[in-house]
């Protein structure tokens, strides 16, 4: 017995030593990717998206390498669903990409936990929209440079409205009640088409709350009142009760299915709320020329509550050994017309006025219309700041509680309380 186990320990020790040596030998043979070959500096740039974006980005990176022959950029592409899990794992292993794409909800998480470098003074930002640029700040430091902007807006399908014998509303004055009524009308006379589909996106609640003078995030607390949340749910409840929008189960299905299968995109619905950069896909899927509209208002509201939100940000790792090269890449991506000529509006409409002027004519017609729309509403916008840590969970929390109320599993009062406590817990943690 004792002999056996001693032998075992001996075996294990030898084997462990053996694997360590072979492992490091193998590693030495295949690795060495951090230093880069010759006098070239290699940096890694991580981003998410579709295969179309990957192609555009690869082309832009190639252009960058042409202009900067001493820098070699490796694109680290991942689809959206697994982007953050992969990024977090790499950061945990001290293996962070030098330049990382992050969206606004993840910004405080990564900046607050010390993963990002302050880019102030490193990346020229004079020509960028200064208000939008501010949204890349956390605790007064410029951790992130916005790529381009979007607005959460109402989209309407004129052909469906026409079929239902309804007119396109005047979006400068319309109220939520008018919107609900219009949707109701369409459902009655639209020959099978629905008036609206609701989208329990925090952005909608943010717009709605701003019209009532409340902020979604007030510092590190949720600034919404129970009444506001209830009033907001009431809109969806009215839509469902009057059959202006499909029942909750169908709506939930539509939400998971994504923009291309939405009622709006399949010409089965007249109106829906989407980000302005989704106009492109929705139009393509429906084959119709869709209209961008302002969000309806609360009666008597002084502010429309709409805001421009960066589609995503470029950030640099706090631990990168090549911060100059990382800054150079970000500079190229946001400030160089050559980059914009390739990327166009893929990451939102550019906010660099000079770049925008240079590529404006190259943008496809749909983007031109978005641009006109954003110019029109520019004077009415509310400012935007990066939400606190935990904001990445907000969409799920809101959706869960909204479902619970709309499926009748709880009362709006209790639901609102529960939402507030869960949401506050998420951003406090």
């Amino acid at each position: 017995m004792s002999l056996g186990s001693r032998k075992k320990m001996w075996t294990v020790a030898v084997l462990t030593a053996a694997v360590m040596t072979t492992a490091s030998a193998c590693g030495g043979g295949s690795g060495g990717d951090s230093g880069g070959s010759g006098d070239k500096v290699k940096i890694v740039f991580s981003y998410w998206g579709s295969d179309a974006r990957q192609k555009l980005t690869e082309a832009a990176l190639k252009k960058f390498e042409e202009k900067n022959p001493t820098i070699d950029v490796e694109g680290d592409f991942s689809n959206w669903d697994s982007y953050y899990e992969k990024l977090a794992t790499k950061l945990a292993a001290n293996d962070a990409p030098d330049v990382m794409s992050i969206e606004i909800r993840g910004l405080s998480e990564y900046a607050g936990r010390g993963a990002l470098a302050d880019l102030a003074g490193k990346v020229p930002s004079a020509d960028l929209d200064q208000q939008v640029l501010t949204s890349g700040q956390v605790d007064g430091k410029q951790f992130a440079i916005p790529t381009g902007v979007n607005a959460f807006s109402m989209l309407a399908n004129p052909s469906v409205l026409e079929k239902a014998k309804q007119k396109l509303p005047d979006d400068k004055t319309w109220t939520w009640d008018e919107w609900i009524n219009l949707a109701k009308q369409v459902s009655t006379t639209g020959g099978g088409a629905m008036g609206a589909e609701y989208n329990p996106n925090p952005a909608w609640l943010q717009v709605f709350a701003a019209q009532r003078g409340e902020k979604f995030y007030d510092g590190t607390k949720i600034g919404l009142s129970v009444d506001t949340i209830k009033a907001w749910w009431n809109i969806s409840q009215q839509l469902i009760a009057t059959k202006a929008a499909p029942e909750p189960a169908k709506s939930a299905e539509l939400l998971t299915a994504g923009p291309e299968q939405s009622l709006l995109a399949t010409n089965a619905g007249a109106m829906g709320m989407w980000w302005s950069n989704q106009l492109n896909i929705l139009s393509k899927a429906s084959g119709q020329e869709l209209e961008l509209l302002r969000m309806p208002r609360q009666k008597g509201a002084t502010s429309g509550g709409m805001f421009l939100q960066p589609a995503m940000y470029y950030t640099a790792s706090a631990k990168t050994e090549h911060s100059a090269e990382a800054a150079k890449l970000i500079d190229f991506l946001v400030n160089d017309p050559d980059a914009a000529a390739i990327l166009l509006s893929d990451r939102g409409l550019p906010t660099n006025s000079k770049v925008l002027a240079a590529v404006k004519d190259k943008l496809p017609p749909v983007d031109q219309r978005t641009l006109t729309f954003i110019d029109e509403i520019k004077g009415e916008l509310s400012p935007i700041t990066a939400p606190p840590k935990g904001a990445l969970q907000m969409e799920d929390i809101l959706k869960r509680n909204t479902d619970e109320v709309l499926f009748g599993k709880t009362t709006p009062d209790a639901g609102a309380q529960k939402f507030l406590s869960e949401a506050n817990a998420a951003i406090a943690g």
Partner: protein
Amino acid sequence: MATRSNAVPFLFRPRKGGRLLKHLMLAGFGLLMLYPLLWMISSSLKPQELIFREPGLLPSTVTLENYSNGWHALKHSFGYYLWNSAVITGLSVLANLIACSLAAYAFARLNFPLKKLWFAVMLGSIMLPHHVTVVPQYILFSNLDWINTIWPLVVPKFLATDAFFIFLMVQFIRTLPRELDEAASIDGAGYWRVFLQVILPLCVPALATTGIFTFIWTWNDFFSQNLYLTNSDNLTVAVALRQFLDSSGESAWGPMFAMSIVSLGPIFGFFLAGQKYLIRGVATTGLK
């Protein structure tokens, strides 16, 4: 071959007339199993914009453009990703067959100190959800400088970390009568010869099962391939397929369905080839 008629002495041996009924039942039920595949094939043949507008199984317009678009949609042609997957999958199958059968033989047939403890440890190692070990494991492989190589995906398999298959083969070996090895060792065979010449040939179904499952699970394994192979030149089929989809934006549904069908080819082929061995059990090797 001569005993063929005797080789069907089983519960479901059909009587006259029952045979047709059984065929009907199996085929009818089989349609339920086939439906998803038919749906995928049909979707892959529809023009992109019709996929969700047209719910029926029969496409009104048939097009092959999803296949040609999908094949060339990504940085490399799809064949490139098929090859990447094939290399990793092939090595994994080999690795699991060797490493797991060795360990299984020891657990099933040999006596050694602490056997029960190690067996429990082996089972225990499959009970912890991998989401919490993935970060430390990534750190390990990252320190070995193995990121963006196939080693993190293949080396663990050569070290029998897929305990599932060890347990599988242990159970199979234990169904074999012990007299077999005893007879062999009386004939002068050592442990290695018993293992190679008695146990392994009788375990062909278990080996086939291991091979088939390893092939399928590795081929479809998105999680670790996505994590360890980040360079766009190293991608595998499982990762490439997801690149057609972007839940917040534009998805290439048609090409995704088309390439899903294409990537189904190798695993289905492997299953077809493997199932021959799956059913080559003790019964057909003429034992006793």
